[in-house]
């Protein structure tokens, strides 16, 4: 066992309101620069939809991530080593700018400088690359709330393999159903961006798992852009270097949550430490598809296990980090409660950002066979649990996103959330839980919760105490509950030992000259 620590983020999709505050916070902080205008290290997509860059999940086209070959060995989908070098002159699967969008601004100066005339002057859109007037035709959130459109939703690769009947059901309600999926770099355990880089310029930090591009070592071969299945490495067209989400490590190192998480209006984001077993990564990433998710979650170690603790200390992980790992909200959601899953585990990069699948929006009206949360008198108490497919986002679709098509983990998460929701609603006098006082007639207990609801909790392995914990961390967490950040101990960092100037670009002072394009 070789223990390492990972700073991990969790997105509670039930709470995302699609406001893009996260994207803007990130843009203002990191990518408001020439060459980076088109980059959205954090983006929020409407699902079902094609996302940003368009169709990024279509790996038969983009060839990101890893695959398992016939002998059960892990292979980079993009290229072999020799093949990678041979394709240095032209990368056949690189997304083009128009797959993202042509970044534009407006010629605001015209508002002031146009000559006197009868017409109001206008600020025409101009390309941020050529400076020429242009007609904006797409953008990173162009399909916002447009899931129903057949340009976007119908082309979502995650709908492949979703049962036709279920698809038809989605399409019936396509004009109203959508959900948001905020995405950043997943700071994977088995990053294919690192493996694809011929220069060896990308690396994973051992102390917190952040995956970074060494801009001094990057030579612009842009294989990482293709290699990342999530399309979260971007090529800066003016400096000729690749860039990616840095998980706001300068903020983490000073005890602040990343800007996207800090600014999140829906408070959907959580940050915390996970301990993982570095020796188990390769085996876990090479498992057959149906074992992948479990194998990935198994590499995450229990921080309260004394053996893990001992191995962690041996690996140089200090008390502050161990303590943070034990209090990690991510560990709670992912391991203790089984509520959160990684995005597309079938890419085999072992993504370390986790998602609580969306329960909402549940149907609130009873129509045909669709079930609602308020179970009518006389109806079976847990009917809704048995009819999850009638919730608006089909389980099969969510399973394609988060669990390699396996319904069980999604059903577990949704049932758990439903049980907690029903339980809490019933505690409110006049609440609409439907299974207690106002529900199916069984006598409620002291706190207004009927035996039927307690049985419901039990059926998903919850005690009332645990249900309360889930409720608290979901609905009313404080900033300190959401972001459990470890002390970074910068005094122990490498620049205390290495001359920062001689290690410049990798550690220490960082870039002290502007990022100018070479010639």
């Amino acid at each position: 066992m070789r223990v390492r620590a990972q700073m991990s983020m969790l997105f509670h999709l039930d709470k995302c309101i699609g406001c893009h505050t996260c994207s803007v916070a990130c843009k203002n902080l990191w990518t408001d620069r020439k060459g980076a205008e088109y980059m959205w290290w954090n983006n929020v997509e409407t699902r079902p939809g094609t996302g940003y860059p368009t169709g990024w999940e279509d790996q038969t086209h983009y060839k990101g991530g890893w695959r398992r070959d016939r002998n059960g060995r892990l292979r980079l989908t993009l290229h072999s080593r020799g093949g990678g070098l041979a394709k240095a002159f032209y990368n056949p699967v690189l997304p083009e700018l128009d797959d993202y969008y042509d970044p534009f601004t407006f010629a605001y100066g015209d508002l002031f400088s146009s000559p006197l005339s009868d017409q109001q002057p206008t600020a025409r859109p101009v390309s941020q690359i050529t400076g020429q007037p242009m007609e904006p035709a797409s953008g990173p959130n162009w399909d916002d709330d447009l899931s129903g459109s057949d340009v976007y939703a119908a082309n979502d690769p995650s709908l492949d393999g979703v049962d036709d009947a279920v698809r038809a059901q989605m399409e019936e309600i396509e004009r109203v159903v959508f959900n948001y999926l905020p995405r950043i770099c997943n700071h994977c355990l088995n990053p294919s961006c690192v493996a694809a880089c011929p220069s060896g310029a990308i690396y994973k930090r051992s102390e917190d798992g952040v995956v970074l591009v060494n801009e001094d070592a990057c030579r612009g071969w842009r294989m990482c852009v293709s290699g990342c299945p999530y399309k979260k490495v971007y090529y800066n067209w003016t400096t000729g270097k690749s860039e990616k989400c840095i998980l706001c490590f300068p903020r983490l190192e000073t005890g602040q949550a990343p800007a996207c998480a800090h600014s999140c209006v829906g408070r959907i984001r959580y940050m915390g430490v996970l301990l993982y077993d570095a020796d188990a990564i390769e085996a876990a990433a090479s498992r057959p598809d149906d074992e992948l998710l479990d194998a990935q979650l198994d590499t995450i170690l229990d921080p309260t296990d004394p053996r893990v603790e001992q191995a962690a200390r041996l690996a140089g992980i200090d008390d502050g980090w161990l303590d943070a790992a034990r209090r990690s909200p991510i560990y709670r959601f992912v391991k203790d409660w089984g509520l959160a899953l990684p995005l597309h585990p079938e890419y085999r990069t072992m993504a370390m950002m986790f998602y609580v699948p969306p329960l909402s929006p549940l149907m609130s009206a009873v129509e045909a066979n669709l079930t609602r949360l308020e179970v009518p008198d006389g109806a079976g108490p847990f009917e809704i649990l048995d009819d999850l497919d009638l919730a608006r986002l089909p389980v099969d679709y969510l399973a394609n996103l988060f669990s390699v098509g396996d319904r069980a983990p999604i059903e577990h998460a949704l049932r758990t959330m439903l049980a907690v929701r029903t339980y809490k609603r019933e505690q409110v006098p006049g609440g609409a839980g439907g299974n207690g006082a106002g529900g199916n007639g069984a006598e409620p207990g002291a706190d207004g919760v009927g035996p039927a609801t307690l049985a419901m909790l039990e059926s998903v392995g919850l005690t009332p105490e645990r249900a309360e914990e889930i409720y608290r961390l979901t609905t009313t967490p404080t900033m300190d509950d959401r972001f459990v950040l470890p002390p970074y101990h910068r005094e122990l960092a490498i620049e205390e030992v290495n001359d920062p100037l001689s290690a410049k670009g990798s550690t220490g002072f960082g870039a002290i000259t502007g990022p100018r394009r070479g010639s």
Partner: protein
Amino acid sequence: MTTNDLLFGAIPYAAVVLAVVVTVVRWRRAAFTVSSLSSQLLESRLLYWGSVPFHWGLSLILVGHLVGLLIPQGLEAWNGAPVRLYVAEATGLALALWAGFGLVVLVYRRLSNARIRAVTTPMDLVVLAIIGVQILSGVWIAVAHRWGSAWGPGVLGAYVRSLFALQPEPGYVAPLPFMVKVHVLAFFVFLAVFPFSRLVHIVTLPLQYLARPWQKVVADRYPPHPSYVTPRRGR
């Protein structure tokens, strides 16, 4: 010193010194500026038709030249049978035309596409011009002064070896046809411009990729685990 001595006795050394010293300094002091400066993100279709012939054609021709100049005996042995001489010559000419086609596409792409113009520097055009002169003069020689692979190693090989031996004999070049002189001189200009242009990316060809582990984990802490790589500059 005659002009010939200056051009073929002094300039080669100046060019090599520039190429080596400036490349090393740039690599160490301004590693950020070293990049292939790919523009594929902005335009991909024409790049395919230009970049692939250009790079592969030139790389293979370069290998041919190195073999001819550095191990002339090998080339002479190969050329022992006339058929093989024809094959070598025809291959060289075909590669040059192929690379030349790529170059034309690349120049057209640079000048015609608005997005590519936005990332084009004067140095990019200088580089394309120098390589254009190289290809043109090379094709000229192949056609007008045929069987270069037969006479080249003897005449030019001796000259190159004299340069390496630090006893330059520019006299070897003096009697050669004008286009051969252009071809040789253009190479030294290429070397001199090399460290100041995007050409530096040639020496960054990451052959180490063939052998390095897939994953790279870097420790920012002491004591690092033995399996961690410690960051070094310029890597």
